[in-house]
């Protein structure tokens, strides 16, 4: 799986689909860093973003990499809004690609035991999302199965 990701990255880079980092970004946009309004009678609206300790050179596609996990409505609304603001239409496949890269990074760090033990549940959830045809609920410390896919 890892070598496939590297090959895909190289192909995308050669074809010009992946650009160099062209913005400074938050780099950790995810639900635990989204703050919503707290009125149960209203629609949920993003009111704040927290946790800026990973801000770094990035790209819009990398910044929005978690949106596919939230659903196509979020992904497509983000692409539409970005186009309205900048005139640039982001490629959703590149956004999805960065989502997978993030997952592979997480999995490899887990394999290297760079994360604490309680990340097992997170890894299991991520595996289930990326490979829904398998049952990953019983994932233990071994993730060789993931790499063999």
């Amino acid at each position, binding site marked *: 799986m890892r070598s496939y990701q590297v090959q895909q990255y190289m192909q995308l880079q050669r074809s010009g689909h992946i650009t*160099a*980092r*062209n*913005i*400074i*970004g*938050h780099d950790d*946009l*995810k*639900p*635990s*860093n*989204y*703050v*919503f*309004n*707290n009125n149960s009678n209203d*629609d*949920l*609206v*993003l*009111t*704040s*973003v*927290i*946790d*800026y*300790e990973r*801000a*770094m*050179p990035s790209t*819009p596609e990398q*910044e*929005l990499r978690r*949106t596919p*996990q*939230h*659903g196509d*409505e*979020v*992904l*497509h*609304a*983000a*692409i*539409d*809004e*970005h186009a309205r*603001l*900048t005139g640039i239409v982001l490629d959703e496949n590149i956004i999805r690609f960065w989502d997978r890269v993030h997952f592979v990074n997480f999995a490899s760090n887990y394999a290297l035991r760079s994360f604490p033990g*309680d990340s097992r549940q997170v890894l299991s*959830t991520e595996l289930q999302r990326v490979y829904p045809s398998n049952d990953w609920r019983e994932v233990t410390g071994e993730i060789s199965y993931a790499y063999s896919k």
Partner: protein
Amino acid sequence: MSVETAQPGRISDTKVHTLLKDFGGSRYRHIHPGEGRDIVVVEDVTTPYIIKKTSAVPDRAFDTTRMRIPMYEAGILKLLVDHLDDAPVAIPTVIDEDPISGLFIAQYMPGITLTDGQVASMKTSEKDSLGRKLAQYVHWFSKAIPLDSSDFRQLYNSHTRSHYDKRAA
């Protein structure tokens, strides 16, 4: 106030006392005890603030409040502070700091956070709003701190292991 025994979803007594030592407080209270989440508020300081949130979030939400942040994050927030009028969402600001001891406190951000699954099950209109807000936020952030910002470059090189020029290449 007595210190309650650590339970699942609660901050341990040891952790509480470590944090209290950092913050110079001694009196505190738990919020939402027994609901699978736990927040500790320090009360005997100038302005009460929350010092820690749990990582276990089995229910819909937990509060996010004033928090201790790293020096690098404080530097980023200071770079953003001149651009808050145009921000699509509220951005925390640094409200207290002691650089010598490495203590930085970010502003209270009222609201709730959700799990991945809860975001995925939001209503269509809420998802549309979220996607647009995220795009606005990314665009605003990129304008607030431009790629060629010398202030950011200096901050990044001072606080991270990788060098900005290598990272940006």
